[in-house]
């Protein structure tokens, strides 16, 4: 028996994990999940280096954990509860998780970027706190029972000595502070010893959700609460000319028309009255600028002044390409896409002359607190932001804006205000996923190897998350006169420092060498990747797999083009240019699970109206934050131009898995969301404004869509830390589908989404080219 196994048995005993009903259906756990600390944790100085900032044991034996990483549907409530239960050897039902309440939780910034698992489940923060607490409790028990720690066993919050005497957590520390720093030497339990983590425990909020009891931020009600609506400008860049308050004088229940620079809102006694007032109010706006036509947008993008950044530049690309047997060129484009959260955003704010409380679905509780303080001119320690889940968010939906807006309205009327966005408020003004154009060029040797690869991308960006001090990054701040983050024109300098691939700009096949140090995943040493950041006419922000999905679409489809030119099998050709064992691992696992049909693409015999094909794509998400490879099988109706994915097989390596069922749910959702983005999702605009502002004008696959099957394979190498997993699978979907379409038809789709019109155009182009040959 290994040392760690023996330690575990001594320290934890045999835990019997009951999934139900104790762990699975206690809606009360969730409904009361937000609130003050049980015994006077002070809001203004929650020091993440102190154990008491993370964990408290109550007199009732309940272990309360305070986390700055929140659950908005991705399963963090359950997984973080499992983590605490695991390390402290208590049943799940005894764990209460408080998420992102700035009065009691440590500041963990934003819950985003697939960073929650690496942050809280490895060797720091919540995981370290739980391990520290377990060791501290064992130490206290050893003293109390007069036995050495090695003799003690631990089960469901009770520590027992060899004499049979025992003591509970609540007897040791109930309602008292630990007064200890986090102990960086505290030992986490090894995955081999897990009894709660690593198990497919059903989501703790399942029953409350399915029975309609779950409390979303939309349900928060505060005594004396009024209802607000905002009145947004008709277009980006429009400024307020005049508000005619008389136009709403007859609206019953109207409390106030609130105007602050270009911000306009109404407050009324009921939601309906607020809606009426917002609809009826006469507001004149000075028009904004004309927008670049959507039809030629990517050409426009490539001509704009830009801030240029090299991710890598071996400085020999042109020379190497000059010696290549063949050179392949292509441009890929990726449209603006939306979070399009199903629930229009909502927040409740209660602002008094001395303080502000905001119930918010923001992923950034502390940053939101900071911005609210700034916008309201209230000291930051008088502002409390309480996270309450809204509808699913995939980056930055309207949750931050609606929180700021609610605070402004509440301050203006001196009463609590609930603000509900309309669907148009949400969709016209959210921070969109960036549009990108990606130009690629690569040379093949006579033997069919890639000898040099050059890529250049143009990313449209404006604004971002507001962070702690940039309200102008989203609509509210802009209306109040704050400037957004702007890309500044400039000339790119050669890359320095360590190679980094945070945005997956660099294909997995690059060696990624900077000054002789190579950090890439591949073997191509003649390499250049240049990014131009261009001012976007619309706000942009982090939409699930931000820039990673755009870049991977281009990189992985272009790799497939090179492969076709080399007349090689897409899996074998990738393997030929890869060196990272974890990327290789998932690529092989996906191919094996899918029973990959090894041969060059496209299929040679293509006939009939419906043709089928398979494609593959892989990624090292952000370079080192999870690895995935995915095989897509599709059917293409060549007359209608419709694409129907029939099967996805994904292999994922994200290190030790906290909850395999939760992970599968994330992967399935991510894949299908990626499929919707690949097939139908695209923001549209006319010469003045965004025109995709509801579900008639912005496409999303509804529940009637005939879904493909999804098979998931986990690859877990030993002794690696946990990585993120929520964005890893979605990243490869557009490329895998595009490659499958090519395999089925011989037509290469380089523009997303793959609409019937684009598919038919590509088929026609393909026929024309074949005719010439």
């Amino acid at each position, binding site marked *: 028996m290994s040392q760690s196994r023996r330690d575990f048995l001594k320290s934890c005993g045999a835990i019997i994990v009951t999934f139900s009903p104790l762990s699975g*259906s206690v*809606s009360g756990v969730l409904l009361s999940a937000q609130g003050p600390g049980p015994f006077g944790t002070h809001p203004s100085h929650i020091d993440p280096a102190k154990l008491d900032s993370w964990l408290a044991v109550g007199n009732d034996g309940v272990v309360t954990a305070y986390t700055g990483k929140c659950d*908005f*549907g*991705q*399963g963090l409530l359950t997984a973080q509860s499992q983590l605490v239960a695991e390390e402290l050897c208590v049943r799940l039902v005894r764990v209460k998780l408080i998420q992102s309440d700035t009065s009691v939780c440590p500041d963990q910034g934003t819950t985003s970027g697939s960073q929650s698992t690496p942050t809280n489940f490895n060797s720091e923060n919540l995981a370290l706190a739980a391990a520290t607490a377990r060791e501290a409790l064992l130490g206290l028990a050893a003293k109390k029972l007069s036995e050495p720690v090695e003799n003690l066993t631990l089960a469901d919050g009770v520590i027992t000595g060899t004499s049979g005497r025992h003591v509970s957590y609540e007897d040791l520390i109930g309602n008292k502070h630990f007064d200890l720093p986090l102990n960086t030497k505290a030992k986490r339990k090894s995955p081999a010893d897990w009894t709660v983590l690593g198990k497919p425990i*059903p*989501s703790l*909020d*399942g*029953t*409350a*959700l*399915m*029975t*309609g*009891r*779950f*409390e*979303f931020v*939309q*349900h928060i*009600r505060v005594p004396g609460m009024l*209802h607000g609506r905002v009145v947004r400008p008709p277009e980006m860049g429009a400024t307020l000319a005049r508000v005619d308050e008389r136009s709403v004088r007859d609206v019953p229940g109207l409390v106030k028309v609130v105007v602050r620079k270009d911000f306009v809102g109404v407050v009324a006694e*009921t*939601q*309906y009255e607020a809606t009426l007032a917002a609809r009826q109010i006469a507001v004149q706006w000075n028009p904004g600028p004309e927008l670049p036509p959507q039809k030629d947008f990517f050409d426009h993008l490539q001509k704009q002044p830009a801030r240029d950044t090299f991710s890598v530049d071996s400085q020999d690309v042109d020379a190497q390409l000059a010696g290549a047997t063949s050179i392949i060129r292509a441009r890929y484009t990726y449209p603006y896409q939306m979070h*399009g*959260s*199903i*629930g*229009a955003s*909502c927040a409740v704010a209660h602002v008094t002359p001395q303080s502000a409380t905001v119930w918010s679905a923001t992923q950034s509780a502390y940053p939101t607190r900071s911005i609210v303080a700034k916008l309201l001119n209230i000291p930051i320690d008088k502002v409390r932001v309480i996270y309450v*889940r*809204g*509808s*699913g*968010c*995939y980056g930055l939906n309207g949750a931050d804006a609606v929180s700021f807006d609610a605070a402004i309205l509440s301050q203006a009327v001196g009463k609590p205000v609930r603000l509900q966005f309309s*669907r148009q408020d949400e969709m016209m003004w959210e921070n969109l996923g960036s549009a990108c154009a990606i130009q690629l060029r690569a040379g093949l040797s006579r033997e069919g190897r890639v000898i040099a690869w050059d890529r250049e991308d143009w990313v449209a960006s404006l604004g971002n998350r507001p962070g702690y001090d940039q309200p102008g990054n989203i609509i509210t701040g802009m209306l109040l006169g704050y400037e957004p983050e702007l890309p500044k024109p400039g000339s790119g300098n050669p890359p320095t420092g360590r190679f980094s691939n945070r945005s997956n700009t660099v294909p997995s096949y690059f060696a990624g060498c900077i000054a002789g140090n190579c950090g890439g995943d591949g073997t191509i040493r003649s390499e250049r990747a240049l990014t131009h950041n261009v001012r976007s006419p619309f706000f942009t922000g982090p939409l699930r797999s931000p820039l990673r999905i755009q870049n991977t679409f281009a990189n992985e489809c272009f790799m497939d083009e090179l492969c076709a030119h080399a007349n090689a099998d897409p899996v074998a050709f990738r393997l030929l240019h890869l060196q990272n064992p974890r990327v290789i691992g998932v690529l092989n696992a996906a191919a094996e699970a899918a029973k990959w049909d090894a041969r060059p693409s496209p299929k040679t015999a293509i006939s009939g109206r419906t043709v089928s094909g398979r494609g593959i794509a892989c990624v090292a998400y952000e370079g080192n934050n999870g690895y995935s490879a995915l095989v897509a099988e599709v059917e293409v109706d060549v007359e209608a131009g419709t694409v129907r994915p029939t099967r996805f097989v994904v292999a994922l390596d994200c290190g030790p898995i906290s909850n395999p069922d*939760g992970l599968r*749910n*994330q992967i*399935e*959702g*991510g894949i*299908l*969301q990626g499929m*919707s983005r690949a097939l139908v999702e695209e923001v549209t605009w006319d010469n003045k404004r965004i025109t995709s502002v*509801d*579900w008639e004008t912005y496409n*999303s*696959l*509804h*529940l*009637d*869509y*005939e*879904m493909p099957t*999804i098979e998931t394979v986990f690859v877990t190498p030993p002794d690696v830390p946990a990585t993120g997993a929520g964005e890893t699978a979605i990243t490869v979907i557009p490329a895998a589908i595009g490659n499958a379409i090519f395999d089925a038809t011989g037509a290469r789709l380089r523009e997303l989404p793959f609409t019937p019109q684009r598919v038919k155009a590509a088929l026609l182009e393909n026929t024309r080219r074949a005719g010439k040959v």
Partner: protein
Amino acid sequence: MRQKVTLDVNGQRHVVEVDPETPLLFVLNDELGLRGPRFGCGMAQCGACTVIMRGQVVRSCVMPVGAVGQDEVTTLEGLGSPEHPHPIQQAFIDEGAAQCGFCLSGVILTAKAVLDVKPDASDQEIRDALGSVLCRCFAHIRMLRAIRKYAEAKRT
């Protein structure tokens, strides 16, 4: 103009004083404190506000409360409780068929309504009924599996 409106919701009678033009959804949320139906779009496009009336699904965000009349309104919480979920809710719990869960009224009530009318509805018919129901987390596969499981259990 506010006036008294009587509503039968989930087996209970309520009298509320509201403008009869107020969308039923606002009354369910704000006056009765119900959490099942939710504001998604306010335009009957997504299904998040779905309730059942006379066995039919209704988008409560566009139904004026004054038009409800004598009809009993059933919301997601009217189907079952956390202690005693309705079998279709239990199927969703068992399959873990949600992520954020905001869309569930549309998904669960629409599926229940179609299967109440036609217990042997095919997968295609169930999907057709769900044609204007949206889930942006894309928990589609689990949801359809839960519905199928419920439908099969109902038939036997």
